[in-house]
């Protein structure tokens, strides 16, 4: 059972919800938390554990072999990302633009672009009681989050039983990394705040999830600020609102100290329990 926690707007509470919901599930059952915001993972500030595995992750990049190349130009014709460019008597490869699709390599008539591995980041697996926490981190200077997110998902699929509840802390926005983080999940929780900016970006996130044909629901964070437009929008579009987490200074204080919130604030715990119940119902119906 895979649940992604995403948002259009950044800073609306993805990590707060992911970590607190994980801890709530862990009170009664085993749960996997995966931080897929590999460009700036931060779930690890709130969920600690004993490191049981550390892997270096690589992506595949073509390397030009000058001695066998006939300069036919097939590679640059086949590259959709302009990562391979023919410049007179040489072939240039731009690793930051390469999407590791293998087209240039596989279609080269003289096999002059073999794929070689290039380090892109790390994956850490920590254990703490009922919680398995997987955090991947892109190396500084790497531009593409998608390959590392994909490999992190593969690790989780290979390591854990498919029935265990898995919570994915997704990157913000609606671009490729979010698509990769949400495309294989059973349900997406879109967390937003009840402000005009929150609503604007929520609409973009909703469009994205509709395009992906995902089941999704909304959690309103900092409920009580702004206005009622997010609620009206969700009701008008028949989008389920799973919970409304009340706005509170105490939440910000606990967050800034790296602490979990629901254990100290019953009104937050009550809302998280609604989400937990919703997820368990989905699990039964699956």
């Amino acid at each position, binding site marked *: 059972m895979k649940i992604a926690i995403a948002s259009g707007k950044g800073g609306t509470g993805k990590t707060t919800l992911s970590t607190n919901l994980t801890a709530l599930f862990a009170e009664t059952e085993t749960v996997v938390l995966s931080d897929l915001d590999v460009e700036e993972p931060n779930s690890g500030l709130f969920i600690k554990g004993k490191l049981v595995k550390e892997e270096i992750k690589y992506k595949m990049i073509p390397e030009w072999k000058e001695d066998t190349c006939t300069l036919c130009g097939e590679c640059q014709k086949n590259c959709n*990302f*302009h*990562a391979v*460019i023919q410049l007179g008597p040489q072939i240039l490869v731009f690793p*930051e633009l390469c999407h590791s699709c293998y087209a240039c390599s596989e279609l080269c008539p003289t096999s002059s672009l073999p794929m070689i591995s290039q380090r892109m980041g790390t994956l850490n697996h920590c254990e703490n009681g009922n919680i398995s926490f997987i955090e991947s981190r892109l190396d500084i200077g790497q531009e593409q989050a998608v390959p590392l997110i994909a490999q992190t998902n593969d690790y989780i699929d290979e390591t854990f039983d498919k029935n265990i509840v898995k919570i994915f802390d997704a990157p913000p926005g609606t671009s490729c990394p979010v698509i990769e983080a949400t495309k294989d999940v059973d349900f997406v929780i879109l967390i937003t705040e009840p402000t005009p900016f929150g609503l604007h970006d929520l609409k973009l996130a909703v469009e994205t999830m509709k395009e992906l044909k995902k089941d999704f629901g909304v959690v309103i964070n900092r409920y009580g600020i702004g206005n009622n437009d997010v609620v009206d929008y969700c009701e008008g579009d028949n989008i389920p609102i799973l919970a409304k987490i009340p706005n509170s200074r105490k939440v910000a204080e606990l967050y800034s100290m790296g602490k979990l919130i629901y254990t100290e604030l019953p009104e937050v715990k009550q809302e998280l329990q609604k989400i937990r119940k919703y997820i368990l119902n989905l699990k039964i119906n699956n």
Partner: protein
Amino acid sequence: MKIAFTAKGTEWESEMDPRFGRTEFILVYDDEKDEFTSFDNREIENEAHGAGPKTSQKLFEMGPEVLITGNGPGGNAATVLEKAGIEIYIGAGQMSVKEAYKAYKNKNLKGV
């Protein structure tokens, strides 16, 4: 000598396009033959990635010795242009092609 311009049109009076990778046109002036050749680069709008290398590659095929542009190429494009041995002059983004040519001739443009 052939001199290339990033431009929004194909004439002397056309405005320069300050962008390199996503320039609308590449205009090449051959000052020995006193003639222009141009390339319509507007399809680049549909490319999400790699506009710089792609435009650089096209520019290389057109064979200029000098490029005059506005903001200057990004990292990937600069790598290609360096390999291609094309001299780059920037800061002509707000001029017409004619003004940019004069500024280059009077050595008023900054080299990269």
